């Protein structure tokens, strides 16, 4: 064992040598970090690097050789009409489902923040869809949307709201809104819980003071609640956008990207490229593009948020 000299005066770090010495001194810490670090390196860092390598190659995963194709994958992507379609669909899905889920979540959170009887039960009920296995939810909703025997059509027809059964998932215009509706249903609970936490963190004094000043319920919501919830809103927005850019399960289960690619999102397209056409190079290219888009998006939001915060 080496004897660690007692540091007399804290000195500024002196590059690599210093780091190494520090590392030796704290080797137990690294030992404890090792399992996670190794797993992370092998399954994440290595895989990520390999995926990047693949974006310049062609690989069918069955054949061992991976010929170098330069920027062909990227060029192909730019010209790929289905890729463009998938971007549009993803943006559509995100633009519709994220704000809607947040808005409804906020509404429910505001209501359930009132001293209601059975509040806890209601909160649990609204949160249930979040913890229900997603595939199960998707399969059940697929049946609800069924044109001939689905419950939606049954009640809509019965109440006279529609006169012809709607084809929901088989209709070009309706398929995506149907998916959005189902997604909103599953995501409202999460927004609600996060908003509830945000609401409870708002100091009661602010409301008291405003009441003294004569502020009404609307004014309190507009000038206290909403501004105080800004960080929560921002968090939900970022998480929501990241999540819905990667929407996959409901598409896979409910529409398989149809009808005529109207619900083919970027993630579903990545999946198709990889496991339907076995074009791993192209799939990696698509995945990296998705990653880049999310990165830019998040950076942008962060900037906006910081500016508002200042």
């Amino acid at each position, binding site marked *: 064992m080496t004897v660690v000299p007692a540091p007399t005066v804290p000195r500024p770090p002196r590059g690599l040598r210093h780091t190494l010495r520090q590392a030796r001194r704290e080797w137990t810490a690294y030992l404890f970090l090792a399992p996670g670090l190794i797993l992370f390196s*092998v399954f994440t860092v290595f895989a990520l690097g390999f995926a990047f390598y693949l974006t310049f190659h062609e690989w069918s995963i069955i054949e061992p050789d991976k010929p170098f194709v330069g920027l062909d994958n990227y060029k192909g992507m730019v010209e790929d009409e289905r890729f463009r379609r998938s971007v549009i669909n993803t943006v559509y899905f995100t633009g519709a489902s994220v704000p809607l889920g947040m808005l409804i979540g906020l509404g429910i959170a505001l209501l359930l923040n009132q001293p209601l009887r059975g509040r806890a039960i209601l909160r649990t009920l609204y949160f249930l869809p979040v913890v229900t296995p997603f595939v199960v939810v998707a399969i059940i909703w697929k049946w609800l949307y069924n044109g001939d025997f689905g419950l939606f059509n049954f009640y809509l027809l019965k109440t006279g709201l529609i006169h012809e059964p709607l084809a929901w998932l088989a209709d070009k215009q309706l398929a995506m809104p149907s998916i959005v509706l189902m997604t909103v249903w599953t995501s409202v609970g999460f927004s609600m819980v996060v908003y509830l*936490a945000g609401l409870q963190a708002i100091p009661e004094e602010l409301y008291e003071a405003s009441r003294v000043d004569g502020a009404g319920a609307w004014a309190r919501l507009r000038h206290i609640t909403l501004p105080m919830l800004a960080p929560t809103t921002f968090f939900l927005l970022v998480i929501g956008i990241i999540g819905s850019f990667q929407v996959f399960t409901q598409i896979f289960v409910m529409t398989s990207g149809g009808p005529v690619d109207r619900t083919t999102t970027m993630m579903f397209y990545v999946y198709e490229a990889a496991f339907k056409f076995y074009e791993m190079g192209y799939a*990696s290219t698509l995945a990296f593009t998705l990653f880049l888009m999310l990165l830019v998006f998040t950076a942008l939001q962060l900037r906006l948020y910081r500016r508002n915060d200042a």
Partner: protein
Amino acid sequence: MRLTSPGRSSTIAIDCANVYATGLDRSGAAAEQLLGRRSVRVSKLAGSLSVIVVAAALLGGCGSSSDDAPEQSAAGAGSGPVPEPKEPVTISFASWVGQERGMKALYKTFKAEHPNITVEFQNIPAEEANRKLTTQIAGGNPPDTAYLDSGTIADFGSREALVNLDAYIDRSDLVKKDDFVAPFRATTEFDGSMFALPFDGESTALFYRTDLFEAAGITDPPTTWEEFEAVAQQLTKPEEKQYGTILFSPSPESAYYWYPWLWQAGGELLSEDGKTVEFNSDAGKQAAEFYIGLTEYSPQDFLNSNSYDGRIAFARGTVGMYVAGAWLAGVLREEFPKIDGKWATAPLPEGAAGCGTTIAGDNLAILAGSEKRDAAWKWIEFLASEESQRAWTIDDPFGTLLPTRTKLLESPELAEKKPIMEGFAEAMKCGKPPVSNKDWPKIEERLSEQLGKSMYGEVAPADAIDQAASEAQGIIGR
């Protein structure tokens, strides 16, 4: 890199798909833990994390190179019958029929004849089979033998994933190349060699609801295109949730169920040498016009579905005529005994160029990664033998698959024991396999997409065919 241990491999294909699905949950959970003011940085990290997870799934868990495949050329070299193994050997057999009574009975016979060979059945649902096998091959851990859909042989064969069986067949007494019906044999061939043994097959024919026909006063199934359309029109009563026929727009079915019409019109998919696209001929466009025109008599609710899920529409009497393979007969008898006697089968109607239908089948192959090829051969040779095939097809009381051996297919026994199969056996003489070509899956994808668009009225049938043809030519030229 081998990340798949034998025990776990069965779930890999599904795992891969799941990782995408759970990407969101993981990022959400990671961020949730650190919820609060600092959440911004966390969520950014979580975002990158979830994409990384996906990338990792693509590469780490799902793909690894197969560098340990033995040499292709050495397969089955030697002369005389393949010797029995002296030591006990266990081989694996990937299929979706391992649980069936008929297969269990066959295995019992096999085991009695070959006590040293044990077969381990890997059961995978049919729709997962291809993906699973691909992942297994990529992971360097393929099964020894597999039951493969005929459409996949050329693809796997051309990628050197299957063993060339020519040498084995030359040495065999039980299996000769000429034993098999030509179109079925064609589905197993690539570059003039056989990469699999045809085991069972089916042709596409017409299923129709006799009760709906009766109610509409129609006595016989349609035999021409004109009759087919007239009957479809007559049966279509949207207000009663009743339709003449059923079409599916997703790939590959929108293309697959178009082929018979193409052949009936006198068209071809590709030229003999596979270098030129021919489906955009006048006959092709005519067939597309007719086929897409049938959308009018088809329930929209099922347009984005598939021929398996659509069986419910037929079983419920929503649809009067259903074009499908013989497999549907088996499914109907098993799942919907209530409509027994209310449906019948007939050959597809004939077009300007006469009859034409698609045949498909299941073939037995040895995977190139197998190290126990001789034992594997013994197993598939046994299954493909005349006796086993008779047991598997003709003698199976519920089965609706056709034998692939000429002798069995033409035997009066088949018609006697399976009157319901007569239409299918008859259709065999007009049967054509889809193209056996490694570019074909991609071309079929383009074709399906265009035909699907056309069903949704986005593009005229003839334009759809032209567009698909030009894309297909691009794929071939690559």
